[in-house]
């Protein structure tokens, strides 16, 4: 139950930061991919510059997370499907000018074409799920099972 609240709060934080940074606007993503404006690249780079060293530190300290056991970062080897999936994702991202999280914020900002993008994303994920029969195991980058510790 507590984990649900944490999920909601982190969602609000993530959606809020994306909205405040205008990443839900097609025009922002389009200007970035046209290489007209580098703010979004800097946004992503600074997020990683802050999180990567902190994660490294937490990993070294072998912290015990309250809801997921020992902190275990994933470092999978690249496989063919990473390149294939990444290539398709990039083409779709450039055409639709949005990706899964910003598409939700697009709708909350009142941009109605977000209601076209979201079903498209659901359909795409579903098509792959039907093809590979790996229900629930796609997504999250480095995916892992949730270990729910009672409390």
């Amino acid at each position, binding site marked *: 139950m507590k984990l649900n609240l944490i999920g909601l709060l982190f969602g609000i934080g993530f959606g809020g930061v994306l909205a405040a940074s205008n990443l839900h606007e*097609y025009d922002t993503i389009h200007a970035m991919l046209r290489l007209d404006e580098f703010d979004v690249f800097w946004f992503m780079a600074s997020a990683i510059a802050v999180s990567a060293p902190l994660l490294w530190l937490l990993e070294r300290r072998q912290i015990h997370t309250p809801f997921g056991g020992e902190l275990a970062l994933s470092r999978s080897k*690249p496989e063919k499907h990473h390149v294939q999936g*990444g290539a398709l994702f990039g083409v779709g991202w450039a055409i639709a000018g949005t990706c899964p999280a910003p598409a939700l914020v697009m709708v909350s900002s009142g941009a109605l074409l977000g209601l076209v993008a979201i079903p498209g994303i659901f359909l795409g994920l579903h098509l792959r799920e039907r093809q590979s029969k790996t229900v629930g195991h796609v997504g999250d980058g480095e995916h892992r099972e949730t270990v729910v510790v009672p409390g």
Partner: protein
Amino acid sequence: MVDLLPDRLAWYVGGPLLGLLIVGLFAIANQPLGASGAYVQTSGLLRRMPNVVTWRVWYFVGMFVGGVLVTQVLREGAEIRSGYDALRNVFPLWAVVPLVFGGATLLGYGAAVAGGCTSGHGMCGTAQRSPASLTVTATFMATAVLTTLALRIVTGGEL
């Protein structure tokens, strides 16, 4: 309605904030802050599948709520509109709708094949220094920039 956030937040504020959120979710739940997984779980819930990870569904709802809080409460002037201004300046609406839908389907399919999207691989995966995520991120950045360039050429520089 208060207009607390009238302008776009500078990248050097928004980026580090997002970085802290990424670290926070790892520290609390040992989980990446990935958005496509939230879609997968929400889709599972809507189709009444077994073993739905419910906190990811709440996370899905949260992203929408966070957008409402910023665009409708903290910021003035968010009105009902179509969005996609730059695309709509070049193409009529009857072409924009299938373009957006087709692009979104493609990116959803690609995210499923790659096992993550901009947040899961692009941010959380790179922050973990995962070679797989770095590969995905480099690939989608390259194809996205090339696709944008191709669209620009096809539209005679208009898009």
